[in-house]
């Protein structure tokens, strides 16, 4: 895996120097694949996270007559942790799996061999655009999930716990400074890179049969989720040490 990351770095440097062979149309299609196509599921999951957090929190806070703080709870939890985390896990199942399956199938069909014999680096041509696309799209999706979750929280807060809509919005605004969004988005960017790496890595290593592609896909998802959790732990500790 380290050798793989090294090769990817080389490809990235060549890309920055404008020397990589990289198809713009492929990149746009990937952006669409990991962005637009994920929107419906991200919407549903985002709303539900907000609803769940709000219910769990509000029931407890109501005991102290402090149910208005449910807005703070939902906003801080999703923006800093849950939004990026849940989005990343969805994308591991969606894009990470798709990357492994596509690249694995291309290996079976000798398309990757054909790239090499034509002098195109599979790293530049297949892996780099996928890693860039998901690293770019995951923070955007996470931001969208954040807003969906806050909306879900508002539905519960306003609907079931007698908080006025304006009060909920005001409370949320005071709870999450822009810095919190930044912290969440940094996490999302890291998750995006890791999920894409896992997908491409297992795709490139896939054996030359249909079952090998299936195995590559499963491994990509499992490894993607493991990497996400490890990254969550590490970033949370680092944030804590930095006092943010």
């Amino acid at each position, binding site marked *: 895996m380290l050798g793989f990351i090294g090769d990817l770095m080389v490809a990235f440097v060549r890309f920055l120097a404008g020397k990589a062979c990289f198809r713009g149309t492929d990149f746009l299609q990937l952006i669409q694949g990991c962005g637009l196509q994920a929107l419906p599921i991200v919407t549903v999951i985002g709303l539900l996270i907000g609803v769940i957090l709000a219910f769990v929190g509000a029931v407890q806070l109501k005991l102290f007559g402090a149910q208005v703080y449910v807005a703070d709870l939902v906003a801080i939890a999703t923006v800093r942790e849950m939004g990026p985390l849940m989005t990343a896990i969805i994308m591991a199942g969606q894009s990470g799996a798709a990357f492994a399956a596509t690249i694995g199938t291309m290996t079976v069909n000798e398309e990757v061999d054909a790239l090499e014999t*034509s002098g*195109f680096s599979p790293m530049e041509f297949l892996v780099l655009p996928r890693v860039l696309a998901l690293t770019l799209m995951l923070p955007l999706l996470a931001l969208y999930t954040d807003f969906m979750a806050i909306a879900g929280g508002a539905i519960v807060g306003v609907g079931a716990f007698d908080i006025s809509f304006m009060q909920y919005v005001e409370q949320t605004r005071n709870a999450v400074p822009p810095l919190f969004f930044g912290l969440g988005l940094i996490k999302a960017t890291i998750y995006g890179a890791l999920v894409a790496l896992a997908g491409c890595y297992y795709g490139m290593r896939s054996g030359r049969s249909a079952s090998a592609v299936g195995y590559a896909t499963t491994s990509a998802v499992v490894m993607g989720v493991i990497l996400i959790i490890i990254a969550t732990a590490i970033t949370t500790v680092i944030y804590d040490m930095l006092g943010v």
Partner: protein
Amino acid sequence: MLTSSQGDGQVASMNDDSVHIAVRDLEMAYGTYLIQRDLTFDIKRGEIFVVMGGSGCGKSTLMRHLIGLKEPAGGAVYINGTNFWESSESERDEIMRNTGVLFQGGALWSSMTLAENVGMVLEQYTTLSPQEIKDIISLKLSLVGLAGFADFYPSEISGGMRKRAGLARAMSLDPDILFFDEPSAGLDPISSRRLDELILELQDSFGTTIVIVTHELASIFAVADDSVFLDPDTKTMIASGNPKTILKESTDPRVLAFLRRGEL
């Protein structure tokens, strides 16, 4: 053991300019699983060279060694006198660029149309104008009988058509050497015959060296100048030379059975 048309089994010197690819004591293996060993033969410039042998004997594997996709477990492959696996990155790129390959399944890039498949290397390695590239693409596609299919995706055409499109892609840069892995498998008899004619034409007008992996006897006798015969049991080559001469002079029952479709 070695039935060679040259009688003594000698191969020409590696420095001889007429030799395009020289294979010396090549040993091929997947991990510890030996596929073939002691392969030594020359492919001369401008000749049509056929790799024969039963299914699973290692023909595609041999091709992967000759096009630089797989490193030998032992021995060496010399291309234009340079040892491929000991040459520099830029030398390898140069060699790869002058090599066209048709893979067993066509191996078209599935996210691109046929025109993009054929044009990709032209855009990358030449300074031709878009119009000139377009002209070359339609020329190559019509050469393989796919003139009207430029904007189709590989998933929208049949297996035989994919193979022919792969052929058009392999020829797009007019390479010095072309490798075909079972070019006529999946083609109807007429297309298959036309392919043989195309191969002879390429050799005739461009002097292209052509290496073909095939079981097609008619095609072997129609086009081959030279050949090797790989055997899966002894895991080495058991005949080499012009197939017609082998058929006349060989006494090896395995070779004769193959060349006579099982009749002894």
